[in-house]
């Protein structure tokens, strides 16, 4: 199964003097069950693209096929509420959206809103909070009284409580400290492995993208420049130079080694793999 964008164009303020084409005739297929990163400079259309996935934005032209549904431009599309439950969208700085009296109530809000009973909603909320590593002792305190990293996790739990098939996250690690960021990423990797949840992440952090995204989509000025394996994108010198991709440091180091004469296995992703590989090469001689 795949998510298919077909000749999809999105124009902000269509027909107005300030009309702005944010997505320009996008044809894109995203594979379900994978972790896909969407990268590109600020203003390239990343957020606009993912906001189509749960029909928060509807296409100006073209269509989107997602989870047995087709959303077509300028038609009355039904069943969007159900789609929004199945495609969970976590905004940038999602912690600003917490509002309930207690953490447990905040997370239970989503399921209740979709018709779950009080008891069911609480149950779902507890499961979701467990997934993001928020302990029971926090349940009854205000979501506004915890640290920034915890708030972010609570906001994500609010979406996870809906048990989405597709989880879309816009810059989920921005502003978190390195430990907080890597814990966050591990939550997504586990969801993907254990529940086969499709993970789509908008990110500026190419180090992180290189480390864990199966596939990467590179956007520029509302167009898709690349869609494929993450390793293939960053190993493609021509593309990464042309679009000024900030290369992960490990890629830069691999390039330096190649310049000195080494032949480096393109599948190496981490320093550990690299050091072991080179130790072998050196001892061979």
């Amino acid at each position, binding site marked *: 199964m795949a998510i298919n964008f077909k000749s999809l164009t999105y124009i902000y303020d269509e027909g107005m003097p300030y009309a702005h084409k944010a997505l320009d005739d996008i044809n894109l297929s995203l594979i379900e069950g994978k972790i896909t990163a969407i990268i590109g400079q600020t203003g390239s259309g990343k957020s606009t693209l993912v906001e189509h996935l749960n029909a928060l934005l509807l296409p100006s032209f073209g269509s989107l096929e997602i989870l047995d549904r087709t959303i077509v431009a300028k038609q009355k599309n039904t069943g969007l509420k159900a789609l929004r439950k199945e495609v969970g969208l976590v905004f940038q700085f999602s912690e600003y959206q917490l509002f309930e009296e207690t953490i447990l109530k905040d997370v239970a809000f989503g399921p209740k809103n979709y018709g779950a009973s009080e008891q069911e909603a609480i149950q779902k909320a507890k499961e979701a909070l467990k997934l993001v590593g928020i302990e029971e002792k926090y349940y009854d305190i205000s979501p506004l009284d915890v640290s920034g990293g915890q708030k972010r996790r609570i906001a994500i739990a609010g979406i996870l409580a809906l048990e989405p098939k597709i989880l879309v996250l816009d810059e989920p690690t921005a502003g978190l400290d*390195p430990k907080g960021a890597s814990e966050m990423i591990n939550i997504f990797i586990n969801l993907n492995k254990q529940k086969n949840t499709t993970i789509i992440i908008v990110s500026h952090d190419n180090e992180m993208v290189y480390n864990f995204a199966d596939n990467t989509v590179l956007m520029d000025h509302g167009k898709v420049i690349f869609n494929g394996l993450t390793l293939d994108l960053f190993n493609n010198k021509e593309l990464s130079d042309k679009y000024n991709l900030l290369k992960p440091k490990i890629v830069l180091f691999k390039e330096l080694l190649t310049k000195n004469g080494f032949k480096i296995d393109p599948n190496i992703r981490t320093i*550990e793999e690299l050091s072991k590989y080179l130790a072998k090469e050196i001892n061979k001689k």
Partner: protein
Amino acid sequence: MCYSNTFSKVVYNRIVMSFIEVKDLCFSYVEDNLVLDNLSFNIEKGTYTCIIGHNGSGKSTLAKLIAGLLEAKSGSIKIDGLEVNATNIHSIRSKLGIVFQNPDNQFIGSTVRDDIAFGLENKQIKREEMDDIINKYAKEVGVLDFLDKEPTALSGGQKQRVAIAGVLAMNPEIIIFDEATSMLDPKGKSDIKKLMSLLSDTKKYTIISITHDIEEVLLSDNCLVLNKGKVYAYSKAKDVFNNAEELRKIDLDIPFSLKVKEAFNKQHIKLKSNDLEGMAKELWQLTSNH
């Protein structure tokens, strides 16, 4: 050397008095939960100091105390000999500017020019002088071409530059950057870091940067590591990573180049260089030496 007693005392005082002196500082938001616990350290004039520590270590609280936005529970902070308290707050604030994390929360003008002018207007600077000052600092931070643009037309990095120009226009001695690059995209981040380095090179400003960006530490003079409200380490920036294990214990990251060195160390390959280029060369030499 022989000085009369009084004279040597004066000299002594001059030498020991640091520009920013923090002594036995304690602070808590709620009772019995010290966010800063007996903190003491000094910062010298014209230096660039990074303050690192994970979320909740007390970094931002410390910055707010230095700026007089919060009041210490006990202990003291002195800036240029003046204690930060209600009496001195106006003289302290005139010496100090802050650049905050979120570029959207600190843009108050309707255009770039208005935004930079805001502080100057408060200071009742004459119109003619104001134009010169705005142009000077807009040029220094690289926003001269956007003076008449609205904030919505600017990227995050550009907005942060405007915030910096606004701070510089007030002629501060101290600039505090409170995670000023953490919400920016990679280009914005690297632009602002370059600008901070340039400002530091002028030696005109004492720069304090609260940051999560371990690579930024390598650009600064000194690094203060906070953990659970206490000083965990305070040293020259280049030395702070010498004891990587100690930093890992408190969940802090170390720069990439050091990680490379460590990984090869584990494979019994000892690298002498500290930069990636040098390491790549060394490794290649190892293959050809055999």
